[in-house]
């Protein structure tokens, strides 16, 4: 046992030496995650506010003016221009100077005064579906509010007291992320994607490299067991992955104000297990890939795509096709995204995330054993 530990230690020391001698690798594991975080966090934003809005008032009445005032007052819409003709809508949408156009037809105040339903056109630029959907919802809400206001004024004018009538007023609150900032939502998931990329990619090439260098045969004629080699290869990357976790958490909290509401240790244990599972996956690639290039491509396919697309990071898991949902169970990212968001945003601890932790632990173990076996099978050809 002591000898085994010494051997594992020798591998760990050697791996760190490789890392220290290769500045590009160091760059890849420390600087790249930071750049990825900044890029992703700034580039991918699902935040929708200050939508540039064009208003055209054909009615030019006090009523239409009051109606449009609502848009001016809303933080969601930014009224950037007041138009006079419909052609301006096309121009504004084409130039991307506006994404929403509110058009009040002439006769708006007259229709209201005659107790009929007035119509307002809301044109939405659909080329950005997410923004379009939300703009639509907001303008519908604004119209309803205005309608209510009119009702109340009418009642007042009629001398009715509506306070005894009972009106329904929705109070919408978003839990866990009250301001609905997408960075809060993205960064805990992003951490998982970045971890997957760093760990799988790096370990995927490590065993292939031993084979290419011919050092594998020298390792084989030593008393070292395969599992010792695997563990020795995993430990340095686990440490580095932890460094990345700390880095991303730190940056997320300071730069993006992402809250860390839950049990940090649950996150740490989750990250450790996820890293082990990902590294196991990397080793498996390494054990079966015939060349460094193949290993790199396989790592990209297995690490990046599933953790990006099938983890719940970019798309909610219950909204993707069922067979993709099934595939998502085969990758550790989905468990970790759920742990990460749970801890960061929902204030979760061990009590809440233990099923995911167990899944990751089992996953990691299975990966390690399979890659050990596969590595052995290949080498004794």
């Amino acid at each position: 046992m002591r000898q085994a530990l010494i051997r594992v230690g020798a591998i760990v020391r050697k791996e760190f030496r490789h890392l220290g001698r290769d500045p590009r690798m160091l760059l890849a594991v420390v600087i790249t995650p930071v750049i990825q975080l900044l890029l992703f966090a700034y580039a991918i934003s699902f935040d929708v506010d200050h939508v540039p809005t064009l208003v055209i008032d054909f009615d030019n009445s006090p009523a239409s003016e009051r109606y449009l005032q609502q848009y001016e007052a809303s933080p969601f819409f930014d009224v950037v221009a007041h138009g006079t003709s419909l052609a301006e809508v096309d121009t504004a949408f084409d130039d991307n100077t506006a994404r929403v156009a509110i058009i009040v037809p002439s006769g708006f105040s007259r229709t209201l005064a005659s107790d009929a339903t007035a119509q307002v056109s809301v044109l939405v630029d659909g080329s950005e579906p997410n923004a379009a959907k939300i703009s639509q919802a907001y303008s519908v809400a604004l119209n309803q509010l205005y309608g209510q206001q009119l009702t109340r004024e009418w009642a007042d004018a009629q001398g009715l007291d509506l306070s005894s009538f009972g009106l329904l007023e929705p109070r919408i609150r978003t839990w866990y992320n009250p301001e609905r900032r997408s960075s809060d939502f993205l960064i805990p998931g992003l951490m998982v994607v970045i971890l997957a990329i760093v760990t799988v990619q790096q370990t995927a090439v490590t065993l292939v490299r031993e084979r290419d260098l011919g050092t594998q045969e020298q390792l084989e004629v030593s008393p070292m067991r395969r599992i010792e080699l695997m563990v020795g290869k995993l430990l340095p990357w686990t440490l580095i992955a932890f460094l990345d976790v700390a880095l991303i958490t730190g940056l997320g909290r300071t730069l993006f104000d992402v809250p860390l509401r839950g049990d940090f240790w649950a996150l740490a244990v989750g990250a450790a297990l996820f890293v082990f599972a990902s590294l196991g996956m990397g080793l498996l690639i390494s054990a079966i890939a015939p060349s460094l290039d193949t290993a790199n491509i396989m790592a990209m396919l297995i690490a990046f795509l599933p953790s990006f697309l099938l983890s719940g990071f970019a798309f909610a898991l219950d909204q993707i096709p069922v067979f993709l949902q099934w595939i998502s169970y085969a990758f550790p990212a989905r468990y970790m995204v759920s742990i990460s968001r749970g801890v960061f945003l929902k204030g979760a601890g061990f009590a809440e995330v233990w099923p995911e932790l167990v899944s990751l632990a089992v996953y990691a173990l299975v990966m390690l054993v399979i890659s050990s076996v596969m590595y052995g099978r290949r080498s004794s050809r």
Partner: protein
Amino acid sequence: MTTTATAAPAIRARGLRRSFGDTLAVADLDLEVGEGAVFGLLGPDGAGKSTLIRMLATVLRPDAGEASVFGHSVTTEANRVTPRIGYMSQRFSMYPDLSVAENMDFFATIRGVSKTDRRARAASLLEGMGLAEFTRRQAQHLSGGMKQKLMLATTLMHEPDLLLLDEPTTGVDPVSRREFWRILAGLHRAGKTVLVATPYMDEAERCTHIAFLDSGRIKQFGTPDEIKAQVPGRLVEVSATLPRAALAAVKAVPGVESAHLLGDVVRVLWSGSAEPEQALGAALAAAGVDGAGTREVAADMETVFAYLADPSTGSGNAGTP
């Protein structure tokens, strides 16, 4: 760990076979290497030398047959074989980005050598091989000869009793080759058993025993003297201003086993009863070859194997190696 004083030979192989796809690399091979021997495994590229060595080193499984090292099976008792062997593969297999000292230390550590032993042995090995001043140099920046010495030094760190060296001098300059063999001679004196594969026939002379391997089979086996004795007759070198004319002139002389050009001399294998100088001189004079001279030389391995490997020799035809 057992002591070296066992009755079993260092290596014993029976009916060893291994193929890759349709290619039979080692074909039902029998081999016995006694303790303390410097056993040369000679043969052209693709003869099966590497395959045989890798099977003996436990890194490749035989398809059939059995091999043992110091009495332990290489297939079922690999963990008892590996502590006693040092295996040096044909290609450079050290970490290029690690220094000489780091490479030696790493492989010795995973071999279970204690820290004090590692330090002492590395110092003396590096000193003995003339690598002491390159201790901190990265392996990738070493010359070809130094790389081979580093591999050998690393192989010796756990003090193996049997060294399996796969073409350790291929691609190494002549000076480094001589030095490498000087080191092997030292190991031989220290009682180590060495199995060394080489494509260089001249290296065979430095072995205590040799086997000539071709197409996965041992074609010749014995001590260098025994092998040489298999070649009938004496070796004569004929020099002339026009070597080709000389070759044509001596080819047909009765008693000439084989004749071929080697540089600007003609090498003749003579098995006639008369003195070769006179018989050949007469033939050359009769053919009018200018400036001809003959001289008997000692048979070297190159010629011996050229003769033995050539299926046409022995029938009286001129052999071309």
